[in-house]
């Protein structure tokens, strides 16, 4: 999830405020595939990622691309509008009630000494690692991946050497959306979905990505881990309801002392 945001921001430099909403779309897709075809969310994440890829590609190519060179607040507005539309379309289509699915391993857990580890989460984490690895390989080893990284480094330079930046951006946004799609599907194995949960996840993804370093993929993973740990520790040591405060505190600290994130590269 955070990975998707990282990819999108790192390259396209558009802050995707509709991120959480896109994720709920993916969650509903997973739900539909599960109820209709009994497809396990960890399996359905492949087609869902593909669908979200197309969605993201079209969103970027059709809507966002004229905004690339506009100021941030303009992009922000656009995505807020997109988010509003998505949430309420979901409300109309699926109703407001929380919907969940039960897989065979929903209630499994592994015992590791004193620790009880949630099976669904382990599988989801595994899937997340696979997705992350695939993404990493894509950016590192394929020609398109390299071209995208070139765009991220230098927009005008990329234009000059004749890269089709618009197409690459759309591709990137699609990829980011695909990550979100995969994340949504995985999450479906762990929690229930309602149309209104999107914004909380957008915010969480922001916190994670910025902590780890915008545009850095290992950073997104590290950020996720760190935020998870901070929240858990904050919850154990103080009152659990205030645990997100610790996540925000961490974010503030990171922003102040290392604005580019823990693993982010220094902005030129």
């Amino acid at each position, binding site marked *: 999830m955070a990975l998707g945001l990282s990819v999108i921001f790192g390259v396209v430099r558009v802050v995707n405020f509709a991120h959480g909403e896109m994720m709920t779309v993916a969650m509903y897709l997973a739900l539909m595939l599960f109820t209709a075809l009994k497809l396990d969310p960890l399996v359905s994440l492949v087609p869902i990622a593909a669908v979200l890829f197309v969605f993201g590609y079209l969103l970027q190519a059709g809507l966002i691309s004229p905004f690339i060179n506009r100021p941030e607040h303009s992009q922000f507005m*656009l995505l807020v509008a*997109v988010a*509003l539309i998505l949430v309420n379309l979901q409300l109309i289509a699926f109703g407001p009630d929380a919907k969940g699915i039960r897989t065979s391993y929903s209630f499994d857990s592994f015992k590791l000494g004193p620790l009880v580890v949630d099976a669904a989460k382990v599988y989801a984490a595994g899937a997340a690692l696979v997705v992350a690895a695939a993404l990493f390989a894509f950016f590192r080893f394929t020609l398109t991946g390299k071209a995208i990284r070139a765009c991220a480094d230098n927009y005008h330079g990329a234009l000059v050497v004749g890269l089709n930046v618009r197409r690459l951006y759309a591709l990137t946004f699609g990829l980011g959306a695909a990550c979100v799609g995969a994340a949504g599907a995985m999450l479906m194995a762990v929690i229930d979905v309602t149309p209104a949960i999107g*914004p909380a996840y957008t*915010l969480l993804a922001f916190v994670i990505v910025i902590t780890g370093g915008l545009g850095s993929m290992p950073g997104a993973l590290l950020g996720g881990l760190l935020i998870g740990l901070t929240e858990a520790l904050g919850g154990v040591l103080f009152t659990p309801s*205030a645990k997100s405060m610790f996540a925000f505190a961490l*974010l*503030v600290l990171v922003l*102040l002392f290392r604005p580019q994130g823990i693993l982010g590269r220094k902005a030129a």
Partner: protein
Amino acid sequence: MIARLLEGVPRRGLVLLGLLLAALVVFPFFASGYLLTVGFLVLYFAYVGQSWNIMMGFAGQLSLGHSLYVGLGAYAAAALYVHFGVSPWIGLSASIAFSGLAGAVIGFLAFRFGVAGVYFAILTIAFAEFARIGFDHFAWVQGSSGFFLPVANYATNDLWNLRGSPTMFYYLMLAMSAAAFVLCHALVRSRMGYYWQAIRESPEAAEALGINVFRYKMAAVVISAAMTSLAGVVFAFYYNNLFPEQIFHISRSIELILGPIIGGIGTLVGPLVGALLLTGLAEGMREIMLQLKVDVPGVKQVFYGLCLLLVVMFLPHGVWPPLARRLGLERGGADGAARADEGKP
């Protein structure tokens, strides 16, 4: 003083402004309670939009956490009133102090450590969220169970304690919006206003011209925060209940900046136009849905979202600049985006 304020404002603009003000003043005499409520909302959003605009429109600092200042202002005045019976007019100094201080802290941290652009925006969100969760655990103001102000009768308008009818609140908000408008007008044409705009356009060049960028950015944040907190005071005494979940929520921050963005960032009239359009649009949508007998929750918001989308796509500078051009008001002062290409060779 007045003459200087009016200087350079085109006649037509003045006439139109006068008409608008007159219309707003007589509005309650013709409006039903419903329209009055809507009118109050318009003015409320125009006011907070104007306040936010100082930071974003003039000084170019994107804040996505302005609900922080609304909330702090609301809680400070309300708590003083409930716990000590302090009149909101005195309490608002505490509101201004707290919000200004919060703004100063955020500004200081951000500008000292060079947090800018998107990062700054996210920092402001982080602080607002921080406050939301913090206030959820702040027992003196009842935490998340909500802070209720005693509701007195509505027969008398007690301006001193801000207890009274919606009409009173409407005029209060009108006065505040008008004051904010005049203040912003004066600010933008002052030395500070020029400096802010210079910083917005290019901080490096501004520095090279001897502008202490840090100090002026701080001023923008503090002034904006303090002004916003006043809206919080009114909010508290108008609704008489405060919930951290609502008042500090990021959706409220977004709500309050939609107006100026739609209306036209960096313009004086933009926040008002934006608030008018958005509130009108929202209410109009409901009306249309009602007429069409569509009772599906969510449809209205979808259309609302679509309208927003169209505006940002086709009017990148907001509604006001092209509208001003149409009305022949381009040179409306030093404010911003719409400027005629007069004197072109």
